[in-house]
């Protein structure tokens, strides 16, 4: 389906984007899109809002939750923006396209929903202050980023959660400039990894009151992947001792590229250079007709981390137009805790 092709094209940023590399120094690529520049100072709350001159952008929230019934749950709420041209316009003439994904994972079930919307008409969008990110009736909104209400709805599930941050924003990479390949592809990337969450999940069996931890990722770019890169494995882990880890592997034909950020219990972030974060698949599960690694060994030797990461529900497949695996995980080994795993390109 071409709509899917569109999404894949913008999300995976194939072909033409990498050819545009030579223009990176000028700040725009061949199609006129802005490219991330090292040394740019992120400004808040301004940068919570959209950057229409960049090709792609997302507001990505994942949360590991526990119900009053003692059962573990996970939810995902994502708003993607992709620009067909580096401009904004009123009405249907806007070249901005928005996509929402919502997931709800239980140990035995995985629900998901998808929304698509045109920019320019108000069906979807983000405002920085007061913060409001929405698509259709899905919403993440509050006075500012530290106190938000999160709502999404599919045809058989919905959730309504309150999120309060108790820590500072984390800038990944070089003060928010996150390199994605050895050739130099990069994005702007920051996170709020420390939300306290409570609220209600509406499942087909009825409502469940839940509490837990949330992690918001903000990223925008015009060229996040190199030509040979086929997908990624991305981890966000919160350990019981208060430390946190963000790490990803970009799988490429000419070798994998890894990166990450170690977040101390006091909120101090340290970028992990290429190779410092490593993860190896330990076991796969057949999901949607493909072999997807749902058990991993994750290690950061310089931080003494050597742990096993296991999917809460190995079937956490997001069968959306652009399909991928996304679900809550548990951590055992040198560290214990919970987190989220996203895997694309399988």
């Amino acid at each position, binding site marked *: *389906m071409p709509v899917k092709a569109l999404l894949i094209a913008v999300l995976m940023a194939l072909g033409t984007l990498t050819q545009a590399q030579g223009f990176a120094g000028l700040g725009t690529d061949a199609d006129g899109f802005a490219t991330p520049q090292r040394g740019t100072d992120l400004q808040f709350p301004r940068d919570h809002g959209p950057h229409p001159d960049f090709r792609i952008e997302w507001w990505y929230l994942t949360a590991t939750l526990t119900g009053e019934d003692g059962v573990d749950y996970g939810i995902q709420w994502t708003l993607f923006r992709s620009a067909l041209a580096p401009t904004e316009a009123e*009405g249907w003439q806007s*070249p901005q396209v928005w996509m929402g994904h919502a997931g709800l994972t239980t140990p035995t079930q995985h629900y998901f929903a998808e929304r698509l*919307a045109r920019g320019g008409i108000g*069906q979807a969008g983000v405002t920085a202050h007061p913060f409001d990110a929405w698509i259709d*009736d899905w919403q993440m909104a509050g006075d500012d980023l530290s106190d938000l209400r999160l709502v999404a*709805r599919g045809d058989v599930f*919905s959730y309504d959660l309150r999120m309060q941050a108790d820590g500072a924003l984390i800038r990944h990479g070089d003060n928010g400039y996150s390199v994605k390949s050895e050739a130099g592809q990069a994005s702007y990337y920051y996170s709020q990894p420390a939300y306290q969450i409570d609220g209600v999940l509406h499942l087909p069996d009825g409502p469940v009151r839940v509490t837990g931890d949330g992690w918001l990722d903000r990223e925008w770019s015009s060229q996040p992947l190199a030509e040979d890169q086929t997908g990624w494995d991305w981890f966000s882990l919160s350990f019981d001792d208060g430390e946190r880890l963000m790490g990803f592997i970009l799988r490429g034909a000419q070798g994998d590229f890894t990166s990450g950020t170690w977040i101390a219990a006091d909120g101090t972030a340290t970028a992990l250079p290429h190779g410092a974060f490593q993860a190896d698949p330990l076991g796969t599960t057949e999901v949607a007709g493909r072999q997807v690694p749902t058990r991993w060994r994750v290690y950061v030797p310089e931080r003494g981390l050597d742990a096993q990461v296991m999917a809460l529900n190995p079937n956490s497949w997001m069968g959306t137009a652009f399909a991928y695996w996304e679900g809550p995980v548990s951590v055992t080994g040198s560290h214990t805790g919970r987190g989220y795993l996203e895997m694309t390109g399988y």
Partner: protein
Amino acid sequence: MTRMALLAFWSHWRRHPVQFFTLIAGLALATALWSAVQAINAEARASYAQAAVQLGVDGTEILTALDGPIAVSQYVALRRAGWQVSPVLDGTLRREGQSFRVLGVDLLSSADLPAFAAPEAAQNFQAADVLTPPGRLFASPETAASLAHLPDLPPIIETANVPPDVVLTDIGIAEQLLNRSGQIDRLRVMPVQSAGIPPLADIAPNLRRSTQTSGETDRLTDSFHLNLTAFGLLAFAVGLFIVHGTVGLSFEQRRAMFRTLRALGLPLRRLTVLAVAELMIFAVIAGLLGLAAGYTIAGALLPDVSTTLRGLYGVPAANTLHLRPEWVASGLGMAILGTGLASVQALWRLWRMPLLAAPGLQSWAAGARRTNRIMAVIGIALFLAGVVAMVLFDGLVAGFALLAGMMLGAALILAPILSLILRLGARTANGPISEWIWADLRAQLPGVSLALMALLLALAANIGVGTMVSSFRLTFTGWLDQRLASELYVTARDDAQGAAIEDWLTPQVDAVLPIRSFEFSHAGTPLFVYGIRDHATYRDNWPLLAYTPDVWDMVASGTGVLINEQLARRSQIWPGDTLTISPKWSLPVAGVYSDYGNPTGQAIVSLDALLSHARDVPNRRFGIRVAPDRVRALSQELQTRFDLPSTALINQAGLKARSMEVFDKTFVVTGALNLLTLGVAGFAILTSLLTLWSLRLPQLAPVWALGMTRSQLARLEVVRSLALAALTALIALPLGLGLAWVLLAVINVEAFGWRLPMYLFPLDWLRLFLLALLAAGLAAVIPARRLYRLPPSDLLKVFADAR
């Protein structure tokens, strides 16, 4: 024994090849007309169904606003409340004399449409190209070809997944093509909705939820197909008269053989089974032949039907015929069922036939009087039922009920009426011969009454439909004369050129009348509002059906609006009422004008009024008033001076000719079916007379023995047939005129939205009358010739066999 019986059965047909041919031909004819109509209907319906799927309207619920287009903000409000809806902008794009239906959809929420979702679609286009200027147009190869030469259009992607004459595109592109920024005509409600979304009434109380299949077009096309089906049934019924006659004859002639077979020991049950089997084999053979013929007829008529459907109703219809199981089954089924129906009487007689007793002399008159009375009562009841249906119920179905009641009732009353006339006629008889002739006519009546009914129906249908079409044509011609008052029509390439042409023309012609329109929406359907400059051309010529005294002053001052008849009848607004053109613009209706051949609503206001309520109204078309002898020179000068294509200039005569051509094409199908039905009826008379022939010998022999010559008898045979046909034709006349009235005043109003005056065409009646006489005469000539050449010994044999 069975083998012997089969041989005996077969020998009959070998000795009577004409009868065999008649039986097969009659049945095949009936099946052919029926299945042709069914094939056309099936094809057209398949086209609609396919188009409905392709346009995402197959049973999909839609939301429409009662008061004009839906605002984008309202769409967003619905989406933000959780409603999964998808916007559609539906308009007409007119370029260089051609018009296309443009359907603008939001690509992202319409990914389910076949044009976007089909497996091959992925290779055809990139979504980003569709969403960003200049965008892409999706059209069928046929439509793409006619779009190809038009300037300033986005690139076209050919796809079989868009119906003909429709252009599918993104709503962002469509709103600019149609000049309707920020408007939505309807919202498609997606089949899967989230649980717990708020009710529609809370978010959008002004929107009405409906299923699209119950739309206006469906009702219109349904009436068209009902029309065709009625015609098909009529033809089939007429064909059945033939079969009935032939089967009756073959059984009658084989009475002796059947009796012999029974006497030889063939059980009655087996005899009956054999007879039924024989009939069924004939039915299948004739059915297959009929299907083949029907397929050919349908193939020949389909292009004209498509033209009608596209032209009158604006619905997509295919030009090519497919073999569809539904009409093959319906054709064969009707052939078998029809044969059964037509043979019931013959089989019943066979079953009841006394084994040994010789048949008594058939007295045709016996019981006829009682039958006549029953038929008359039923016929009158049917007639009344039709009238009652018309009085009690409104609409198309009631109209057809009235038609059916009239036709069937009249057919049933025919024999009693004829019998009554003959009885009255008999009183004028003086002398034995004339008395015998009258009595014989009456005696013969039950035998030919079925054939006469067929003739009556065919003639009445011919008169009725012919009167309707001719009245329509006359009205249409007069209307064209009024409507196309300007001598020359010119279309500029763009607004700037339009202004230049107007400036250049103004000093040298009597008047330049701009033809400018803007598409609004009224009750969910498009409403084209034309702005005119006040001019005598309109005041003198415009065909008004109803108006207020100061109609043109009201229009000129911008305080009144003219609407077309379709809109007036559909929305029930007439002079004195108010038309809401847009939420901010309502005007009292000053007049209603006739507007034939146009499926959509139309209104006329003053140009100033239109321009103050609509932005960017194109200014490209003009009517030019100029002395007729200057038209040729002027159009040549216009063409060279402004470098216009020859299609941009149309003179009045050319436009009229083209309109009449479209009109005539529309009724080709009706005309063809009409003629075929009449042919079948003539054939029915022939078969019934042939059937009667062998039965009549015992009746004629005594008259011959009393001294009348064979040539006298033969002449009388022809005269008798002519007399019966003439009487039937006379009765068919009022019936046909009644039919025409129902078609013009009831069916047309319901089906097309306009009422037509009825004109009478006595010359056509005379032609039909002569045609009926010719058919009856020809049909009588064959048996009369036989009688004339009959050896006297055969007539004598009648007495030799006498018991």
